């Protein structure tokens, strides 16, 4: 119901703003209390849900979701998308994830030093060594061989509590830069000296931290989704409910921005019993 006492300015601009960011439409209209209320309640619910699910509650539906029989994923995302930009960002991430340039990395343009953890196995003159390693990994461009770019690097850290330094071969590969996991897999060959000769019989497997923008709201495959659900249990469902409810509540906020409140203040019936008394 449109209340003449409330100045809605341009209701359609307010509606679009309210959709893009809960409370923004009301802020534009000068209804600051409601702007703060909608922003706090809706975004509070949404981000609480996101935090409970490790910031992985929003999953964009696959392209052609209906053709792939994944209408449920579309519905789930549709409810979350009600909060606007915070959920719509998932569509950008979907495009990045499925782009042709999102492939495993075998070359690097500039040196990179990052924390690393994983496992190593190699042989040298002292025998066979294997164990868990934690430390710092430095990756750098390797000289081109046969016109093919590659990367190499060094690892400095500890293996089972002992200091270790490893020189990597040119066979270093990182997993895709954009994936739902917070860690990026790495596999590399390790150079060792055996019988006075350099060999590359060892290998190093592990992971480095992935930048936030390269995993946040990125589509998960079914295994990743099931693993997350398995880890979180009912908290995964709780997180989903929070994000769905947040998106659906913003529909009410959008409606309020476009049309004004549903009831005029002071003109609504108190309760059914009051109606009966009046009649």
């Amino acid at each position, binding site marked *: 119901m449109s209340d003449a006492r409330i100045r809605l300015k341009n209701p359609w601009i307010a509606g679009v703003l309210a959709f893009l960011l809960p409370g923004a439409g009301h802020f534009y209209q000068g209804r600051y209390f409601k702007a703060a*209320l909608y922003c706090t309640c809706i975004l509070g619910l949404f981000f609480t849900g996101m935090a409970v699910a*490790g910031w992985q509650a929003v999953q964009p539906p696959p392209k052609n979701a209906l053709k792939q029989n994944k209408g449920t994923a579309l519905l789930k995302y549709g409810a979350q998308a009600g909060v606007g930009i915070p959920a719509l960002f998932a569509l950008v991430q979907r495009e990045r994830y499925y782009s042709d340039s999102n492939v495993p990395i075998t070359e690097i343009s500039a040196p990179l030093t990052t924390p690393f953890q994983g496992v190593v196995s190699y042989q040298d003159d002292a025998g066979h060594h294997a164990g868990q390693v934690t430390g710092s990994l430095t990756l750098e461009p390797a000289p081109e061989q046969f016109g093919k770019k590659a990367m190499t690097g060094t690892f400095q850290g500890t293996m089972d509590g002992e200091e270790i330094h490893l020189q990597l071969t040119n066979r270093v*590969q990182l997993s895709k830069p954009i994936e739902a996991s917070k*860690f990026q897999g790495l*596999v590399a060959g390790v150079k060792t000296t055996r019988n006075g000769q350099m060999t590359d019989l060892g290998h190093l*497997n592990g992971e480095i931290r992935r930048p936030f923008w390269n995993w946040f709201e990125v589509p998960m495959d079914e*295994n990743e989704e099931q693993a*997350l659900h398995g880890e979180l249990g*009912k908290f995964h469902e709780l997180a989903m409910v929070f994000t769905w*409810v947040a998106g659906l509540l913003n529909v009410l906020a959008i409606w309020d921005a476009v049309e004004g409140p549903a009831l005029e203040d002071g003109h609504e019936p108190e309760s059914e019993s009051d109606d009966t008394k009046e009649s």
Partner: protein
Amino acid sequence: MNFLTGVLSDCRGASFRSLLLTGRQNLMNVTWYLIPLAAAVSLVWNASRYESTELILIRSGRMFLQIIVFMAIILGGLVALSYRL
């Protein structure tokens, strides 16, 4: 390179998932999350119906209490039904 790809797939498997979740395991009972949920729903619902700040807060408070009491009754019923199960 196929070997490398295979190993990378393993790296993304369940063993590394546990690292991802470290430090944010939820110890709070899931029921407590329903209180802010009920509060947010009450506030937003009533804000979409009224314009007066006072009316919004009064109605929201009333609706919040109704939701909590309703859920408490349901919870009590379920606890009673599951007694000595």
